[in-house]
């Protein structure tokens, strides 16, 4: 890769009732953690559609954190269990597409667990740093042969036209 040091870009989906408050607590308690996570507050971890995660990865995120209330403590009773199942489905699918498990992590952190959330963020950033950049955007670009071939077709067709004329 390049000489520049790789700084992982992480998108974090944090639930309003527990994990986002844990982040607030971590802030007010001045707990140090890696600054790589861009936090998006959602009402519940159950709100996190797998497409949010896929979109983040496709647009340049190197990793994604989904964080919510502990199982059994969901503000909406049992939606974090849905998050848990969706996460399982998503991981299973991402594995099939060659995305390493540790890039997408599910974390439970209550409003009182600022330290726990900070530790989870540090862990995720360390894991992704070790895996390296994902660089998904551009994963589907073709090499230079393609443009040459497109030019050649035009040229060949022009020549063929001349012969018949």
């Amino acid at each position, binding site marked *: 890769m390049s000489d520049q040091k790789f700084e992982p870009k992480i998108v974090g989906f944090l639930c309003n009732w527990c994990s986002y408050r844990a982040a607030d607590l971590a802030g007010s308690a001045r707990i140090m953690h890696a600054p790589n996570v861009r936090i998006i507050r959602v009402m519940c971890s159950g709100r996190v559609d797998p497409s949010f995660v896929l979109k983040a990865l496709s647009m340049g995120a190197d990793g994604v954190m989904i964080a919510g209330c502990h199982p059994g403590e969901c503000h909406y009773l049992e939606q974090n269990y849905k998050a848990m199942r969706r996460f399982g*489905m998503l991981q299973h699918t991402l594995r099939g*597409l060659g995305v390493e498990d540790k890039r997408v992590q599910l974390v439970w952190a209550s409003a009182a667990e600022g330290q726990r959330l900070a530790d989870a963020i540090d862990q995720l950033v360390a894991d992704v740093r070790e895996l390296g950049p994902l660089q998904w955007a551009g994963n589907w670009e073709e*090499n230079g*042969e393609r443009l040459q071939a497109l030019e050649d077709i035009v040229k060949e067709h022009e020549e063929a036209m001349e012969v018949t004329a």
Partner: protein
Amino acid sequence: MSETAVTKGKLAIYWAASCGGCEISLLGIDTKILDVAEAFDVVFCPCIADGKVRDMEKMQDGEIDVCLFNGGIRTSEQEYMARLMRKKSKVLIAFGSCASEGCIPGLGNLHNRDAIFEDSYQETASTDNPDRVRPQAATRVDEGTLHLPVFYDTLKTLDQTVPVDYYLPGCPPESPRIWEAIEAIVAGKLPPAGSVIGEHTTVCDSCPRTRDEKKIKAFKRTWEVIPDEETCLLEQGLVCCGPATRAGCGALCPAVNSPCIGCYGPNEGVEDYGARLMSALASVIDSEDPEEIDQIIEQGIPDPVGTFYRFSLAASYLRRSKQAVADGNGSSAAAADVR
């Protein structure tokens, strides 16, 4: 008679990386094809009539009224034709699943060119290729250089290649839906540009089975059970794609006791078909224990990408599997030159 001839529109039907089923389905509108012939001159349709690319090249830009383009874009020749048909057509319709979302050829995006060639030209049982011959983009002969289309690492959908006006979903689109679309075109009653010509609801809504609360402990594969004919197939543990799939087929598969496989693509407003299906299937798992959940998923869905993205991998957010950097991914300079 001459009056109708003057007002006749021009219709083109082209295919790229596809199987030809879309053309068959088009002919499936039966004797109504005569009505199509009355409204349009079919100026180009290599599948069912002779036609020359040079005739297309000689046409004025926008001279073709409607082009039904089926197939994904896998080679440089197909990309050239997509650009050509775009330029020559007033209305370009992504016709069928391949052009809209990549379809089965799009599953090739789990591999790359080298891997596909290795399989096709080396590993298949009937292949004898000791010299490891591979198709070459350019070959020098005495008379000059011969070119074959360049085979891409990644199949692209039509709208990832050129701007598309409308989409007609389905693998293949059902003949009655094709006829409805043709009627709408002839009557000039098309929806806003960029829309899908079709239903705005899911297969579940047109499925006659009775639905109740879904709670399942295991996903089953079709060969493992003979489902009862009344109850929702998903409730019986079969991976039915109905909840995520656009209606339009009339729930043909559930009607014959077979789960929906999702050939009509994502429903309105869904950006990533697989994500929607994952969400729907995850919701019906009856467990709150992470280990049990993983077990249910891993045992019940051995091929997640093929299940969730059977028809839509090329159009999904991620589009393909991760490529190693050395796998023919070009320099960013070449990539930036695209479009």
